[in-house]
């Protein structure tokens, strides 16, 4: 598609009376391959490209998407959209956007080893080697599903305010699902790795080692694991769990569109209210950030899908609620500037308030120091099942790679320790945070229609005191 098409669309909608127009041309070139129980099922090479337009007319937000590049068809669909938006203005919300700085920028992530220079055979070799590495452990693994996806996303965004942003970001993503069995027992785990980088990131992961280690840890837990103790104890969570905790019970409830109720029908609202800025939500050592500018992270961007310059956002600062995640609409409602949190899955979805890389800021404890004064506790390094209610008030995490701690020492594996806890209790129970840092990839789903964007969840390990497991 050529750029003149979105320029035409923008001018045409402006002429028809829209007070604001934002048009984006976006293409995704995606290669995906997966191995199921040693068999390469299929290789896919897909290109999606199209045009997404957001505009405000008669105080109502209209959104148009198409992958049909002919000017006349584009004109027809724009006319249909303007007609629908005009009819809808009977129930207008009167949407307004915050005033923002205009940017004209172009940026791209340089790939040290270009993904296009790697053949499908070479990519598949990574998975075949990983599959062999699992089998070499002699762990019974009746289910081995491993997929590797790379994608090049190109965007060109213009707005009627004069913003013009061009970007090119490569993504690499590993996803696996392992099922192991031992006598009549079984265990399952899925996980992901993701970066915005070239093939060098995949080589750095060392996929065969990841899968081999995973299979061995799962077997150790399944064969030697004991039931968790009853009563009150302490819990250390590793970055995979602290990351999902941050994502679910800090990131989501701090999305301002939830707070204002726009996504109430499906994605839900928030137990956090607009007037809670400055209120304490956790212990003094808790600082949570959302930072899209972390180099090579899965949630990386320098300008959001409204063309606003990205920055690090401090959601919780020393236990106090510091700021929410905003797009221009929610920023206007709170009388502030956007902090560049508007993201869309692709051209066919509207940009809504999203996280990028949500992280628990590191503290100053080593792993040994976190453990040493625990009389009775559990170290949960990773998890399987989790969920949280739609106000983000009560959540559950089921540990997989988990161990009993007794008198400052790690003793033996524990099977399925289950943490079912409210958000305020969780963030107030933490008394120590590790020095370590890990970013873990995920796709975060939100909105109706549902859309998923790449994020990192992660940060440091944390110690929770006086916890009752379920």
């Amino acid at each position, binding site marked *: 598609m050529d750029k003149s098409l979105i320029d035409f669309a923008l001018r045409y909608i402006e002429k028809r009376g829209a007070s604001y127009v934002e048009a984006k041309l976006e293409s995704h070139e995606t290669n995906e391959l997966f191995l199921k129980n040693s068999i*390469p099922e299929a290789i896919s090479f897909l290109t999606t*490209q199209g045009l997404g337009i957001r505009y405000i007319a008669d105080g109502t937000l209209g959104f148009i998407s198409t992958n*049909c590049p002919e000017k006349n068809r584009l004109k027809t669909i724009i006319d249909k959209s303007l007609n*629908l938006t005009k009819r809808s203005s009977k129930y207008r919300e009167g949407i307004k956007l915050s005033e923002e700085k205009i940017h004209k920028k172009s940026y791209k992530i340089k790939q040290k080893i270009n993904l296009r220079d790697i053949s499908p055979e070479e990519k598949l070799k990574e998975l075949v080697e990983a599959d062999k590495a699992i089998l070499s452990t002699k762990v019974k693994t009746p289910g081995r599903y491993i997929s590797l996806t790379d994608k090049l996303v190109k965007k060109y965004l213009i707005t009627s305010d004069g913003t013009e942003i061009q970007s090119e970001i490569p993504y690499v993503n590993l996803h696996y699902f392992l099922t192991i069995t031992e006598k009549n027992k079984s265990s399952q785990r899925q996980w992901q790795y993701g970066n915005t980088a070239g093939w060098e990131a995949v080589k750095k992961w060392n996929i065969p080692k990841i899968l081999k280690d995973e299979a061995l840890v799962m077997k150790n837990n399944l064969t030697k694991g004991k039931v968790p103790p009853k009563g009150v104890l302490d819990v250390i969570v590793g970055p995979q769990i602290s990351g999902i905790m941050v994502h679910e019970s800090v990131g989501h409830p701090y999305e301002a569109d939830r707070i204002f109720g726009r996504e109430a029908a499906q994605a839900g*609202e928030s137990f956090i209210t607009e007037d809670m800025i400055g209120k304490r939500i956790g212990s003094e050592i808790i600082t949570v950030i959302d930072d899209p500018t972390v180099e090579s992270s899965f949630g990386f961007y320098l300008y959001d899908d409204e063309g606003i310059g990205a920055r690090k956002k401090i959601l919780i600062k020393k236990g106090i609620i510091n700021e929410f995640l905003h797009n221009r609409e929610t920023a206007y409602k709170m009388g502030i500037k956007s902090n560049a949190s508007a993201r869309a899955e692709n051209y066919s979805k509207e940009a809504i308030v999203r996280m990028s890389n949500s992280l628990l800021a590191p503290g100053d404890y080593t792993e040994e120091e976190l453990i040493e004064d625990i009389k009775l506790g559990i170290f949960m390094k990773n998890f399987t099942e989790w969920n949280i209610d*739609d106000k983000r008030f009560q959540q559950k995490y089921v540990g997989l790679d988990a161990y009993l701690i007794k008198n400052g020492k790690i003793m033996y594996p524990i099977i399925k320790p289950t943490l079912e806890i409210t958000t305020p209790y969780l963030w107030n129970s933490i008394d120590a945070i590790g020095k370590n840092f890990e970013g873990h990839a995920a796709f975060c789903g939100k909105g109706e229609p549902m859309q998923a964007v790449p994020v990192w969840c992660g940060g440091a390990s944390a110690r929770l005191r006086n916890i009752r497991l379920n």
Partner: protein
Amino acid sequence: MEIKKYIKTRLEKQGFEDIIITKNILEAKQIKFSKNKIVKTGTELAEDLSFFLTKNKRILVTDLKELSKQNIDKFAKKSAKFIKNLPKNENYYGIAKGPFKYKNIKEFYDKKVLDINDIDLLEKGLNASFNQGIKRADGILEITKTKTELLTSNNAEAEQQSSSLYFSIRSFANKEASGHSNIVSRTLKKFDVEYAGKHSGEIAKKALNPQEGKEGKYDVIFDPLPLSGLIGDIGNACSIFSVEAGLSFLANKLKKQIASKAFTLIDDPLYLNGIGATKFDLEGIPTQKNILIKNGILQKYLHNTSTAKRYNTKTTANAGLIAPQPWNLVVKPGKTKQESLFKGIKKGIYITNLWYTRFTNYFTGDFSTIPRDGTFYIENGEIKYPIKNIRVSDNMLNLMKNIKEVANNVIQTKSWEAQEPAIIPSILVTNINITKPTQ
């Protein structure tokens, strides 16, 4: 079909053996509302041309945008060069041989669906909620028209046009008291937005002043909306792909009693007005009604031609070229009225919506899910009060075995998280494990 035939010829010339060309054209509009105001309109037009190509057990899935003859020739040559270097899938055994004849599905396509008075429809749904005394409603109205054409190297040639309407409304009596209802239909005639508005409003009003729920074992009545995601999970567990990948709690259970006798699950792609209905599968085979679970006994797994050959069975016409999939799940209704399910329950919970279902282990079926919107404590056959902050933490096989009664109130619905549409009545399940946060 002309351009597709030209492409097929060019691909055949390059030595491709199995070729499936699928063209989809989608036109859609949406009205998203929040706090009684329209917060977004959506208008969409999308055309996609996708390919499933094989050569000597090598499989390539790809697509094409620009359809000039020059570009098609380039595409055919490039694909042939690309597939040569791919690894073989030794488990692949081909696609079905056509030609086929297709049955027409009634109430499948309403060609004027995009021209209906959408605002009027929205108002009807909202007013039905407001008439229950509700002051706030949120949700979406979505109307879609789709045309699908399919052509294969084995002489299958198929085409269908379909329409769909979806109205989802969440009514709020206050911040803590809500009710949710979804309604889907192929045609306007059976698209009862007023039912959804009224139903969501009624639940919200009853949900005022919820008390903290308590953990323990309960008899649970699931309404159709919360069941839709769980029934989708059971349907997906019937796919041979899930069975092979370790993602099915129904693996190794063919012909075994895996659910109570009260439970019969059918995949019926020819169902009248079925939102998942389709005349043909992704190989172009005419679809058929498949009984998956009959009176609690697992009857069959879902197959495409290739997986069926591996298992020495017949395809169930559920391609999914890589993963066979259910089309339109139907739970056979019972004879009891929904309100009669409450009789005889000493200690129970009535669930009107669920969200965030996650599995600890798909192979064993261990899962948990969170009731949301109106959730009610039942004692001695009567609803006593609304409750909150609980979680269903159980196992799918337990749940299916503990189905005590299936009601006759069939509703076609789909949920936000699990998009598989299903036609489901309310179901009473005994001895369900309920947990809650410890702190």
